[in-house]
């Protein structure tokens, strides 16, 4: 964890590939942190859902990565960065119900193809940067106050 300045908080949470046992822990931690910051409960809820989906994407699809939480007086940013493999077709990946999860993963009740769409639904601003072979960064922004207000 590094605080860039006094008014912004940044926390990193490592997520391992196929670490199903720890799945959900980052979302719980993020929720606890936001609650302790006194963030309104509907925003905490949205951030928690987005974090959970981000975390599960890292567990299921990535070669491992991290979730970064950034909070300042204006916004909550949940960023999931991984080390690959990258998403070849982002538009397809965003489609509800589309998933590349393996049968084993689906048997565990995951891989319904709702992760990214859910994250977008929870966010005020949503962005995916991905390059095959290098990795993916999914950024979810939830505004605490209207920008500029």
């Amino acid at each position, binding site marked *: *964890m590094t*605080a860039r300045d*006094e*008014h*912004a*908080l940044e*926390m990193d949470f490592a997520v391992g590939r196929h670490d199903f046992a720890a799945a*959900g822990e980052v*979302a*719980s931690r993020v*929720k606890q*942190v936001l*609650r*302790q*910051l*006194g*963030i309104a*409960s*509907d925003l*905490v*809820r949205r951030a*928690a*859902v987005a*974090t*959970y989906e981000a975390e599960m994407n890292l567990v299921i699809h990535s070669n491992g990565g991290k979730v970064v939480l950034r*909070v*300042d*007086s204006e916004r909550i940013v949940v960023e999931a960065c991984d080390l690959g493999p990258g998403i070849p077709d982002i538009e397809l990946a965003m489609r509800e119900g589309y998933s590349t999860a393996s049968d084993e993963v689906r048997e565990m009740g995951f891989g319904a193809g709702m992760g990214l769409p*859910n994250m977008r639904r929870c966010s005020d601003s949503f962005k995916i940067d991905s390059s095959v072979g290098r990795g993916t960064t999914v950024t979810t922004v939830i505004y*605490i106050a209207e920008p500029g207000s």
Partner: protein
Amino acid sequence: MESRFHSVKLLEDKCKGCTNCIKRCPTEAIRVREGKAVINAARCIDCGECVRTCENHAKAIMANSLDDLQEFDYNIALPAPALYSQIGKASGPDEVVWALEQIGFDAVCDVSFGADIITECTRRYIRGNDLPRPMISSACPAVVRLVQVRFPGLIPHLAKIESPMYAAARVARARVGEQLRIPDDRIGVFFISPCAAKITAIISPLGSEKSYVNGALAVSDIYGPLMASLGRGGSSRPLYRGSGLGFGWAMNGGELRALGDMKALAVDGIHNVIGVLEEADSGRLQRVDYIEALACQAGCVGGPANVENPFVARVRMRDVSAGVDAGSMATSLQLARDCIDEFGEGYFCMHEPIQPLAGMELAESLESAIARMGELEKIVAELPGLDCGACGSPTCRTHAEDVVCGRAIETDCVFKLRERMQQMAEDLLRLARTDLPSMARRDDN
């Protein structure tokens, strides 16, 4: 910070300042300070976990006493179904009702009947409302408080239905007032409670402006007098008695059994409840329609104000539930529906909104909370992570919270203190070895 009423209290002279209770508290509400446990009123949810944990019996549940019945002209006892699980097989429910009359009550209305009413209301509520899934039962007041303090995001999921106790109180009051022409304010209605949370809910109601129950007696407080009367063996009928399914509400899974077929989940034990609510709060249980969540393991039969072992009590509860069914199941369920028709469905719904309760925030403004969170993370990184509790806080993390909020200092941690002492000793040694100008230089330095 808002100060709230709690029925769980510390008996200072009995508290030895051990750290057992702080470890079990689901909202991290307890600290040990100056050798005694201190409960943070803003966080306490009255689950009674500390009452159960304390080996010195220093945590007590404050309730009314039988003397308080004298304030009223006519007193009605509302025994929780769990009361019947505390009494040996030799005495049936009618004997227990008679014994309640012997210790001072004029009439008895079984809360199991309220449970039948609430079962029907809940069924209609689930069917009739397009509410966020999963819906969470608000039958256990400790769970409702837990949601308010730790999971405010789930408040819209709470079923806005009154408790069986409330339903029983309203119908009993109405019937006695009407038939005996006693003014409402002369009728005393007392719940016989297996737990602290229910008692707190009576003093400060969850979703209604007014409590229809005047007070509560803890099962453990009336157990002695009740058993003494039971030995004399009379028998009497209550104003209303619920079905076996209504009695079943006192056991884990009982509410769901009464509600019947649906996609539902039952969880008991406050720490297990937290696990399930974590899942729900991250949007993982949308395919579940309803959650029955009870703070006590085994359900209300395991309440902290009971006297029996929860698992023994559950077996007895099953017997009572089965015994009641044999005669009057259909009758009491029909009677419950009649009551809903008579009073109207809305009568048993909560009318006041359930609000989030503050208590977990590090600071009032977001800016200072962010600054404190940054500080907190730095402190946590330097702490041993043993969660030993010797500082009086339940974990290293809560200790760090207390430090940044000015409620503790870093060297309250024995490991930090030790580090600091070692540093001081080294400084002292270095100082002691410094040559004085008047002395000859030593070689060993």
